[in-house]
């Protein structure tokens, strides 16, 4: 869609005919009201026609949540992706920083992650999980891959000292206090091994085999502790089954 779109007279299709037809044939439950973010013009249409709406920045009325931004970004709307970036950068940077523990590396990984998020945005489906978990899954995976390859490179170069730039302890960063408290409370409900296993795996990017070595427990036990811990967290945080 070109910029300056709103000055083009061509896309002013009157959709009332379809609306009438849809109501007549019992399809009105498929109709959603869309509002243009720029002109505030409203129209009623069916979600299936989202790509053919008269305005490229139309969104379902009353929803500028991250999932909608992601869906719009998946349709190629870079303006929506910009909003998505602003809405998610603290979350994304936060987990990347925590895992890679190096500011310069974190910046690099953050850039890679957002390009990946843009690339994969068309694959996001609202009913297959939240926008947050979709985003953090991609971010975390990239961060862990990077940390492991950096570690492998260091090992190969026989560097024994771990040079890490920790100008600020990531744990002290400004974060969402409410979210942090909620996670902390949930983690408190785990046994200490469950909690340590999950933290070593998720926050430190360790495989369950490495977790087993670090905690001096069998690999099978590490696997089970991680699973039991996640199940408890799932119930404590109220993630719907």
């Amino acid at each position, binding site marked *: 869609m070109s910029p300056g779109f709103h000055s083009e007279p061509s896309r002013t299709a*009157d*959709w009332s*005919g379809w609306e009438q*037809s849809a109501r007549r044939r019992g399809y009105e439950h498929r109709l959603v009201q869309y509002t243009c973010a720029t002109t505030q013009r409203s129209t009623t249409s069916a979600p299936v026609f*989202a790509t053919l709406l008269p305005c490229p920045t139309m969104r379902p009325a009353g929803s500028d949540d991250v999932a909608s931004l992601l869906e719009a970004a998946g349709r190629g709307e870079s303006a929506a992706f910009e909003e998505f970036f602003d809405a998610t*950068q603290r979350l994304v940077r936060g987990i990347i920083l925590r895992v890679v523990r190096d500011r310069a590396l974190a910046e690099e990984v953050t850039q890679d992650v957002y390009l990946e998020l843009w690339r994969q945005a068309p694959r996001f489906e609202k009913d297959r999980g939240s926008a947050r*978990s979709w985003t953090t899954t991609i971010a975390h995976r990239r961060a862990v891959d990077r940390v492991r390859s950096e570690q492998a490179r260091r090992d190969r170069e026989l560097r024994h000292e771990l040079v890490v730039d920790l100008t600020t302890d990531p744990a002290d*960063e400004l974060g*969402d206090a409410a979210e942090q408290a909620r996670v902390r409370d949930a983690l408190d409900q785990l046994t200490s091994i469950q909690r340590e296993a999950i933290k070593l795996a998720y926050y430190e990017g360790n495989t*369950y085999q490495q977790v087993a070595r670090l905690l001096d427990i069998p690999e099978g036990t590490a696997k089970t502790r991680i699973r039991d811990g996640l199940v408890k967290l799932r119930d404590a945080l109220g993630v719907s089954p």
Partner: protein
Amino acid sequence: MSSSDDLHDLAAAYALDALEPAERDLFEEHYRTCKQCVHEVEEFREVAGFLAAGESADDGPDELRARILASIPGIAQDARVTPLRYRSRRITTVVLSLAAALALVLGIATRSPTGPDEFEQVTRSADAAHTQLDPTSGTSAGGLEIVWSASEGAAAVTGEAIADPGTGATYQLWVIEGGAASPSGLFQPEDGEVRALVDLPTIDSEDASFGVTIEPEGGSEQPTGDVLYMGPVEST
């Protein structure tokens, strides 16, 4: 050692990215066809989302933001996912490569001559379905009827009082589903009457619709004109 039971066990570690590449690949292969694992991994990933949220940082440098947003327009996005609604929640990715799309468009013309035999082959086929396309606005006149057959892979389009699209332009039929439009065939009215047989792309979901736009002669890969006629893909 890697029986199905063992692989289920890996779901939690997988969701936390705590598997080595070999085991990860093994699990991913199993995961593709295991509903239970798909469900579990989804839930565990939600939990991981919470763990990540607990580590939120501050805003990054403006320079990083500018650099990222500037490089976005140059990057191609993956193809949209088309769900198979009639089955389990297995996802099939529909990849319409540029070459294939182009071939589809270039290869599309009305099948000519549209003799009565070819027409009836479609309208009388065992899985023939009928859809009425209504005009979307007051300026579109008339109406179109589509009788389509998945087995024939074709649609018979008929209509009356259809306006001439103008010189260098043609009507194009689209199958619209999941927010994406797949090109079907082109047709022209003669004295307001339409009688054409067009190729039909695969229709996967029950929420698909037919749409008709005016495009430049030869058709387009994606709709550029307003949708003038529309109707849900259904049997009436």
